[in-house]
C-alpha cells in the first residue's frame, strides 16, 4: 500500500550519490591513471598517513606488504596481502579518502593512486596504466581467500553443552593475568598486544609509546607565549562571530591538527599559538624539508603567509607534507584565521 510520500529522484541526484563500484568493475567512471602519476598524487594526498611507499606512518594503515602473513601471528593485512577485490580500493579511495578531504580527488587521480598502490605491492610493473578497460586484468592475490560465514556448520552444533557440575577435571588455575591492570589511559605497559582490533588501525606498543612521547613533548605554554610576543601584538581584538565560523571551517583541519588545552601533535603540528609564530618550531613535530627551509629563511605565520598557505598549500609550498587541497573561499580563510587567532593569545 503506497502512501505517495517522497518524490522521484532525478538522474543527476542518483549519479551524484550512486558511486559504489562492484567487484566486476561495473559502475566504474571513465578515466585512467599510471603508476608514476600515482606516485606523485600519492605523495601529495596520501603519504602523510600511509607513508611515501604505502608502508604506513605512525598508527595509520599500511597499504602494501604483508604477503603470505595471513596464517602467521598478527598478520599484516594490506591491499596486496588481504583485500580480495580491486574495486574496493577504488571505491574507498574515491569516496572516503583522503581522510579529512573525502571526495576531492578526480577520477583520474583515483585511478593513478590505485595503480600506485598496486605497484607498491609488486602486483604491476611501473609502466602499468589503470583504466576501466584494464581494471579486470588485475586479480588480487587473496581473491580466493574468503569463505562465507560457516559458523552454522563449524560452531553452532558444537556449542550446545550446558554442563552444570564437574565440568572441568582438577582445580581451576589462572593461566593468563591481565596485561594492563590499571586505567588503560595511564601507566601504559608496553607489553605486546593483539593487533588490529579496530577498523582503522592496530594497537602496537610503538604507536602507544609515540603517542606518549608526543604528549611529553608538547610545546610548553610559556614558550608559545614568548614566540607570540615577539611576532604578534600581545592582545588581538577578536570578532567572536567570525571565530565561531572559523571553528566550523576548522573541521576540515582537525583530522590532522589539534588546538586547545589538551592538544597534541598529530598528523600535523598543534596549532595553539600559530598566529605570529615562526614556522617549523613546534617541538616534537617532524616537518618537511621545504618547511624547514622556509623556517630557516625566517618565515613567520602572519595573516598574509597563513592566507596564502591555506588557500593553496601545495602551490604556496611545493613539497609540503600537508595534504590539504586548500580553502577555496576567501571568507573561509578569514574565518579560520580568526579562529586560529583565538587560540594564539
Amino acid at each position, binding site marked *: 500500500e503506497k502512501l505517495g510520500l*517522497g518524490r522521484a529522484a532525478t538522474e543527476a541526484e542518483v549519479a551524484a*550519490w550512486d558511486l*559504489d563500484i562492484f567487484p566486476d568493475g561495473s559502475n566504474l567512471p571513465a578515466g585512467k591513471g599510471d603508476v608514476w602519476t600515482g606516485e606523485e598524487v600519492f605523495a601529495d594526498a596520501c603519504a602523510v598517513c600511509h607513508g611515501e611507499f604505502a608502508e604506513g606512518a605512525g598508527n595509520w594503515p599500511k597499504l602494501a606488504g604483508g604477503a603470505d602473513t595471513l596464517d602467521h601471528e598478527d598478520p599484516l593485512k594490506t591491499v596486496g596481502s588481504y583485500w580480495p577485490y580491486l574495486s574496493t580500493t577504488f571505491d574507498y579511495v574515491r569516496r572516503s579518502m583522503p581522510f579529512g578531504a573525502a*571526495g576531492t580527488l578526480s577520477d583520474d587521480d583515483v585511478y593513478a593512486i590505485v595503480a600506485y598502490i598496486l605497484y607498491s605491492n609488486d602486483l604491476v610493473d611501473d609502466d602499468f596504466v589503470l583504466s576501466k578497460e584494464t581494471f579486470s586484468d588485475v586479480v588480487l592475490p587473496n581473491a580466493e581467500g574468503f569463505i562465507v560465514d560457516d559458523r552454522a556448520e563449524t560452531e553452532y552444533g558444537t556449542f*550446545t553443552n550446558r554442563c552444570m557440575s564437574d565440568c572441568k577435571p582438577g582445580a581451576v588455575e589462572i593461566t593468563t593475568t591481565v*596485561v594492563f591492570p590499571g586505567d588503560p589511559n595511564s601507566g601504559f605497559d608496553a607489553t605486546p598486544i*593483539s593487533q588490529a582490533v579496530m*577498523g582503522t*588501525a592496530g594497537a602496537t606498543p610503538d604507536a602507544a609509546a609515540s603517542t606518549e612521547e608526543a604528549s611529553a613533548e608538547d610545546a610548553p605554554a610559556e614558550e608559545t607565549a614568548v614566540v607570540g610576543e615577539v611576532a604578534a601584538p600581545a592582545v588581538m581584538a577578536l570578532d567572536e562571530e567570525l571565530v565561531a565560523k572559523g571553528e566550523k571551517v576548522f573541521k576540515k583541519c582537525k583530522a590532522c591538527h589539534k588546538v586547545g588545552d589538551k592538544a597534541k601533535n598529530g598528523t600535523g603540528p598543534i596549532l595553539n599559538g600559530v598566529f605570529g609564530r615562526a614556522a617549523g618550531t613546534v617541538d616534537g613535530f617532524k616537518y618537511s624539508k621545504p618547511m624547514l627551509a622556509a623556517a630557516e629563511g625566517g618565515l613567520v605565520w602572519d595573516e598574509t603567509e597563513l592566507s596564502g598557505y591555506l588557500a593553496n598549500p601545495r602551490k604556496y609550498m611545493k613539497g609540503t607534507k600537508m595534504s590539504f587541497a586548500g580553502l577555496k573561499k576567501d571568507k573561509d580563510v578569514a574565518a579560520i584565521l580568526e579562529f586560529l587567532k583565538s587560540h594564539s593569545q
Partner: protein
Amino acid sequence: EGDPLITEVQEWASSLGEGVDATPYGMPIEFESDVVRRNVEWLTADQISSINFTPIHALDGTITPQGCAFERHHSGAITLKKEDYRLMINGLVDTPLVFTYEDLERFPRSQQTFFLECAANTGMEWAGSQLNGAQYTHGMIHNMEYTGVSLRTLLEEAGLDAAGDLKDKWVYVEGADASSNGRSIPMEKALDDCMVAFKANGEALRMEHGYPVRLVVPGWEGNMWVKWLRRIEVMDKPVESREETSKYTDTLEDGTSRKWTWAMDAKSVVTSPSPQMPIKHGKGPLVITGLAWSGNGAITAVDVSLDGGVTWQEARLAEPGKKMALTRFYLDINWDGSEMFLQSRAMDETGYVQPTKAQLREVRGLNSIYHNNCIQTWHVNAKGEANNVEVS
C-alpha cells in the same frame, strides 16, 4: 548515640533545593560523574576515527542512556540538520525516490528495543586478558528503544517489482559522513526486521549515534547500523565494500577469512563485581549481576559460575529475554569471603550455549579479531578486588 545524619537536622532537610528549570535538559548529579564513556587512546591512530566504551559496569537494568552509549566513528560525528537531511532509495526499484526527514515522520511507525554490539567488542581479548574492566572488555555495546519506520515500508514505497525474485537481491546502505561506511545487506534481512530509526529511548538520536536518522539491523554487527543514513540501493549482488572485505572479516588459523559474519552470537558478562566494581562490603549478601544477549533470538537462561566453570548455577533473569535485546541477570549469594573465579554463560532460544575462549580458539585460532563471544572470567580475591584473567 546515633548517626548524626539521622539525629541532626541536615542542611538539605532544612534549606531549599534548586528550582525547576535549573537545568532545562538535565545532567546526572555530580556524584555520578564517573559513569561516562571512556576510550583507550593508543588503540587507534586518531580520536576521530575511533571508538569508546559504554560504562556497563556502573549501569543496571537494560536500557543504555544515550549520553553514555559507546561511539564509533570512521570520519567523526557530523552535524547534520533535519532540514538538510535526504534519504535516497535507488537501484532495482520501480521509482527511485528521495525522502526528507518530514516524509519519514509520515510513514506508519514501529518501536522496539535492540542491542547494538560492535563486531570488535572483546576483540582485544583473543590473545589473552588485556584490559581490566567490563567497560573495556565488553563496553562496545548499547541497548536502546528505537522508534522509526521499517525498512520494508520504505522499500515498498519505492516498489520492488523491478527487482524481480527477491531471494538473491541485496540492499546497499551508506551514510552521509565522509567515510560513507557502506554495507551490503541481504534482502531477506532488509525486509525482515531492519528499521530506519529517528528516535532512541524516546528522544532524538544523539549526533554521535547518527542524528537525525540511522539504520537499525537487529542482532547484526554494529558496523551495519549505518549512521546518518543517506542512501539505500537495491542490487543483484553485494558491493564488497571496504567495511565488508578488508574489515569486519574474521581470519582463521590457516589464513582463510570468513566474510558475511553478520550475526552477533549469544554472549554475556558479569558487570558487577568486576575490575571497576570491587566488592567493598566484605562477606555476606552479595548481588552478582550482568548482561546477556544474542543476535540469533531471545536469551532463555544465564548460568553463573563462582569457581571458574567447574560448577554452574542458573541466575535469575530480571525479565524474560527479548529477541535481539539485552537481558539483565542477577545471582544473589552469601559471599563467604573466599576467592572466586566469576563467569557467566548465556543460552539462547536456538539452543546455543556461549562457548569458552578455548572452544572458540580451537575453531578460529587467535587472529579472528571480531566476534569474540567467549565466556569471561573475573578473579575476585579475598579483599573483593577483581581482575581480568584466563583460567585452565
